[in-house]
């Protein structure tokens, strides 16, 4: 069990998402940085879809009310366990009573706390993610607050959710190094790969050139629902009127202002704005770590490249899992 001692307003329980229910008008939810959550679960030997806590606003403090292994992934936020530093992208053992504190992130936007076995909340519509629009799923359908006590799930065949990590633990190289995506001359900008979407052809050539060549700043009106961007502005060649249609996380809509919105995990599943592009599924995690004020750059890809990127990500996770399992075998033998 863990007890929340301090939290910002928007810490939520998330797994990889609630899939297959868009048809009922229920969005996917799920971790904004799905790669960080997946790596936390790999480090702990958890089920790949076990739920963790997404922490977007720091500081954040929890007390372990039982012995447990935990993993910290995502944003690097100078974590300490009873005052001893815990490196980013790390897992280790916590003893009963120890306090884990996360500070202000040096880089990235969201930290993920995973525990051995996963956060034990009842799945709703097949997922443990918090559905913020419907106030269901996750922990009582709401963000966490001080005093909340979260149960950790027992793993099959084990009495306690402890995996036998040594007290100092181990970690992984940050995935931005293992799955690099760079754009020359844009150290501060976050590149993401984008597929042209349905109404792409409806924009002027000048607008489309700006779309691919200019940076797009993440404005303060950005959260789990979507990121409002600020940039040169996109002009349609002629007015486009559309009926509402289904959308998915990653879709880049263009309202009349010409300033795009990237719909994200808590977006509603339908919308009526024209769509100029879609951030590919394999790069949604990069968006999840974009901070307000940072700029994005869009790299054009085709469907084959988008699915190759998804395969590359899956292979990276599979190899990581194999390496972690091997290491565990060595320790436990």
């Amino acid at each position, binding site marked *: 069990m863990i007890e929340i001692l301090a939290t910002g307003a928007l810490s939520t329980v998330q797994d990889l998402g609630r899939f297959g229910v868009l048809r009922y008008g229920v969005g996917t939810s799920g971790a904004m940085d799905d790669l960080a959550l997946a790596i936390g679960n790999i480090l702990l030997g958890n089920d790949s879809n076990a739920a963790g806590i997404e922490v977007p606003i720091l500081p954040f403090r929890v007390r372990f009310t039982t012995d447990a292994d935990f993993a910290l992934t995502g944003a690097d936020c100078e974590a300490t366990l009873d005052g001893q530093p815990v490196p980013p992208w790390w897992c280790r053992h916590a003893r009963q009573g120890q306090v884990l504190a996360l500070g202000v992130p040096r880089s990235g936007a969201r930290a993920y706390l995973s525990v051995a076995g996963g956060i034990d909340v009842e799945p709703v519509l097949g997922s443990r993610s918090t559905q913020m629009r419907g106030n269901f799923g996750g922990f009582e359908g709401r963000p966490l607050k001080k005093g909340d006590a979260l149960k950790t799930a027992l793993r099959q065949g084990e009495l306690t959710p402890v995996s036998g990590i040594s007290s100092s633990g181990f970690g992984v*190289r940050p995935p931005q190094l293992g799955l690099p995506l760079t754009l020359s001359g844009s150290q501060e900008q976050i590149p993401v790969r984008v597929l042209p979407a349905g109404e792409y052809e409806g924009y002027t050539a000048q607008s489309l050139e700006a779309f691919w060549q200019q940076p797009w700043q993440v404005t303060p009106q950005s959260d789990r629902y979507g990121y409002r961007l600020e940039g040169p502005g996109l002009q349609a060649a002629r007015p486009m009127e559309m009926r509402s249609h289904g959308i998915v996380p990653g879709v880049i809509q263009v309202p009349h202002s010409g300033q795009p919105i990237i719909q994200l995990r808590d977006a509603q599943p339908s919308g009526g704005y024209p769509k100029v592009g879609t951030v590919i599924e394999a790069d949604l995690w990069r968006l999840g770590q974009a901070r307000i004020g940072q700029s994005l750059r869009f790299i054009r890809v085709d469907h084959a490249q988008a699915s190759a990127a998804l395969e590359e990500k899956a292979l990276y996770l599979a*190899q990581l899992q194999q390496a972690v399992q091997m290491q565990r075998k060595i320790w436990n033998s």
Partner: protein
Amino acid sequence: MDIEQLQALVTLTEQGRLAVLELRRPGERVRLEGPAHLDNRVEAALPTVSQGDKTAQVMAPGFGHLVTQHPLRSAPFVTNGNVVKPGDILALIQVDELYLPVTSQDAGSVRSLTAAQGLVGYGTPLFEIDA
């Protein structure tokens, strides 16, 4: 790789009583795992070696790349003269995508024994801790 080469590797793994042997070449990756019952491997947790009363050595816990500064950080884990506590992480050993910690068992002032980052072997002395 043909069957004879593979057999040679199996022999090497057995004779060396290795837990794992991994060979990588372009387009090829072979991993052999020794029998699980082999229990005469070197102790995984390396003890620090005391040299006299005051100085302890911290050695590499395994073979891999020494990483003295986390890539997300702007400063190394420790610099010469830092005072460390038991359990503090002094550096990392990178194996594939994994980072294994090099930790101090002792309290005291730390001194680095290696200048360069790079490959280190099991048991390579990395730090000295002066109590």
